[in-house]
């Protein structure tokens, strides 16, 4: 494998890790606040469809992004109502959101565009294009560092940079600010927050709202940057992989980045090498495609270390003496 191939695989890793990372951080906010969210998948899907649809109709990708975020946020509020206000079961609410999104997106797509449940292909301003960072051209002649800068770091869409900047921002917010302290506390011991005179409900809604926004960006990225339009079930389980990454990362932002990059790398390798010839036998492409999902199962089954979720996670808060 030559250097350029390696760079291309890593470049692909970054692009594939981005939606995972955004969804993973979305889940991190929600679950750190004590609201388990297995509806990441559904929210991403809804965001993907609405961003693609609005971008296709208006021809403006930013409108599309806004629509995607709005759709995801709406589903977040549904989840919040069910699990915070009405103290329902958070898992069931999440499952319902996944089904709802899977069905509604295709139905509306068919109704609006009549293209078999997909949106028209996005062109021009309807997509997020790659951004060439300043100096990428000039530096490309420099050995090693030049190609790394030009290929790997430069040339992604704006959403990729947003996703990666969200990591330090999340860390800072969680561990250096009053909001973060309260958010973490509400996921661990909501009664402590309540007796301290801070509203548990407000905090959790804010967390779920942030989750919705990040999921919205993730979905919009899928449909308007990674690909050019919405197709049925295009999230392909990325929401669940993001959840696995979140557990793998033990609900910590920097580790979430590493976990998502790992999953991204696996996907990139599967995309790049269809059949890997190891000499003795050939690893079939199906296995490579399945690898991220297999890893997800392994992680969720708890084989990788002991991950302790936020203590109040999954439990609606009921005030008691």
């Amino acid at each position, binding site marked *: 494998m030559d250097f350029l191939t390696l760079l291309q695989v890593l470049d692909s890793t970054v692009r594939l890790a981005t939606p995972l990372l955004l969804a993973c951080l979305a889940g991190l906010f929600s679950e750190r606040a004590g609201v388990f969210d297995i509806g990441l998948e559904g929210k991403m899907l809804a965001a993907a469809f609405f961003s693609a649809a609005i971008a296709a109709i208006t021809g403006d990708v930013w409108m599309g992004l806004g629509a995607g975020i709005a759709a995801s946020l709406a589903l977040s509020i549904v989840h919040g109502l069910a699990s915070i206000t009405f103290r329902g079961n958070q898992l069931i609410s999440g499952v319902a959101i996944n089904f709802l999104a899977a069905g509604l997106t295709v139905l509306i797509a068919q109704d609006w565009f009549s293209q078999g449940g997909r949106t028209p292909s996005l062109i021009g301003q309807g997509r997020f294009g790659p951004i060439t960072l300043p100096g990428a051209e000039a530096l490309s002649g420099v050995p090693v560092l030049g190609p790394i800068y030009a290929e790997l770091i430069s040339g992604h869409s704006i959403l990729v940079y947003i996703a990666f900047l969200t990591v330090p921002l999340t860390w800072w917010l969680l*561990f*250096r*600010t*009053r*909001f*973060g*302290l*309260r958010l*973490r*506390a509400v996921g*661990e*011991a909501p*009664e*402590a*927050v*309540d*007796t*301290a*005179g*801070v509203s548990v409900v407000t905090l959790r809604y804010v967390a779920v709202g942030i989750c919705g926004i990040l999921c919205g960006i993730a979905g919009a990225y899928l449909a308007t940057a990674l690909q050019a339009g919405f197709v049925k079930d295009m999230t392909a389980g990325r929401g669940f992989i993001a959840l696995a990454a979140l557990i793998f990362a033990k609900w910590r932002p920097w580790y979430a980045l590493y976990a998502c990059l790992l999953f991204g790398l696996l996907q990139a390798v599967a995309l790049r090498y269809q059949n890997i010839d190891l000499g003795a036998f050939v690893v079939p492409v199906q296995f490579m495609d399945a690898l991220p999902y297999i890893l997800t199962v392994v992680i969720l089954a708890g084989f990788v270390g002991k991950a302790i979720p936020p*203590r109040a996670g999954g439990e609606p808060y009921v*005030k008691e*003496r």
Partner: protein
Amino acid sequence: MSTAVAEESEIDVTQVASAIELKGISKAFGPVQANKNISISVKPGTIHGIIGENGAGKSTLMSILYGFYKADSGEIFIHGKKTEIPDSQAAIRAGIGMVFQHFKLVQNFTVLENVILGAEDGPLLRPSLNKARGVLKQLAEEYELNVDPDAIVENLSVGHQQRVEILKALYRQADILILDEPTGVLTPAEADHLFRILDNLRAEGKTIILITHKLREIMNATDTVSVMRRGEMTATVKTSETNPERLAEMMVGRKVLLHIDKQPAQPKDPVLEVENLRLIDDKGVERLKGISFHVRAGEILGIAGVAGNGQSDLMHVLGGYANATGSVRVKGQEIDLTGAHSDGQSRRARGIAHVPEDRHREGLIMPFSAWENMIFGYHRDPAIQSGPLMNNAAIKAEAAAKMDRFDVRPPNPKLAARNFSGGNQQKIVLAREIERNPDILLVGQPTRGVDIGAIEFIHQQIVRLRDEGKAILLVSVELDEILSLSDRIAVMFDGQIMGERLPEETNEKELGLLMAGITDTDSAKMPEAPMAFSEDDLQEVAENAESSHPEPVTETETETGETAEADPIEAQDDTEAAEPAEEAAHLEKAAQDDAPVEEISTPSAEAPEPEDVPQTDVPAPEEKKPVESVSIGGFSATIQQGAPSAVTANTKPKEEQDTEAAPQQPVFKSRARPNKEGDKDG
């Protein structure tokens, strides 16, 4: 309102507004009236006790004060100013701090983070954390509230966690501190330290409301005490002018026998012999480290210890639901500790009855009815089978008869177990186990969450069983209970039995040290400066021992401010040497005085103690307070009245004569209300 008039006239006299005044507070939950027209006034700079049985409405009242509930009617005055408390934030603003029975701490946060949570100064944490660090240091010096600010809360002992709760309140500048059942989870040493802290706080002019159902704490710590019964405030009296029997009577509404009427044991042959019992749990932790003891027919062996030192595991092994190695013999015959015949059924077949420590999880199936619960464990008894089916009619009839004999209220076998109060639930379990006529009764925490009236009954039943010649193994974290019921006492610490004592030859202090893993030989071997080993150090050790992984005894925390009032261990040894004899004398005298049933015993011994007792150890020695000794539950406790800053006894005209018959406190006829909450304090 007549109360208001009374208050005003009092203000004229003392010129001090009440720190808290409640007027006519009522609160109902559906048909249940939790608080009925409650009026109370708490003087600033005092410790005011609120005592009452489970479900009397103490916690509801305090929750109203802390903004958790909104009262249906009534007014709250803080320092004479009418105050609305719609939420906790408002309570905090009004200067009220609350230490809940179940701590409201974030377990994986540091102490500092917990303290600032909700009281941060700005959007960034760092300035708040730095400020809190300084404030905590200052508070630690002022009030003996030492806690490592950077420690993670879950690594702290329960006593230290409670200090964090107090610090949280003080950091919010609370000057009224409410403590809800603060000593339920503490070792005796930790409880002593807590009361020293409260004394310090009172000396600084803070007002403290202490909610408890423990009469002794009320007598030891408070200046004034209010009694609640069935949602009503039945009386407010000065602590110095009442006694435990009187308070108990006001709590329960009838005369209560506080001490257990029991003859000396007539032990016979050993029935239960345990040798070198070892248990290693799933995580590989050795829970029982080679335990040996025996229980003879006709005696009660009490096992004392702080919760989590192996008592539960011992009960599980003997009860047949944990495997162990070693040898257990029942009437000389070995029983199976690991094999197929090591389960509850086989144990019962061998004559071992078991009243588990946790009746909610191990003793009862809460949603099932009382009659169903009363047959579990004995449901294979051929006597109640009819063919392949169970003879439910017979079982129900038997259950009804047992409930009648054990005075279970309401006597309805069809009611689900969870709908009985804690005391009645415990009676159901006891009835099931005792009435099968076992040879051995294992009984764990028989009176946890049980009200006074039921405690009396349960203790009588246990003693009755002993007198019938049964062997009884009693596990309890309540030292009072151990001391008053047991014929012999074994103390467990860290999976071992630290020693055996006779109740008449020991005292709380000695047992407290044993519970912390300190035997006499240990303290003699202390490597660092044994002679200067202060009582506080010992106490720290005791508190450290509380943590889940008991530390070696030699490890003591050095805490600033505590070394100041150290007495040499020699002096303490002298005290200990002097005490047992005197203690025993009290005991005998008390036993004679209290012997007749249905008679309130007045303080029997009024001997001045030569040494001050640790729990009311005030820093200023020149202020010698009146000390008296009262017998409670068969042993004597030393009580110090008054406080350094408290108003002297005779200057206050208030609340002296107003016990139950207080004219300004309207007393409504109480409706009996079913305790739906089980053990939870209402």
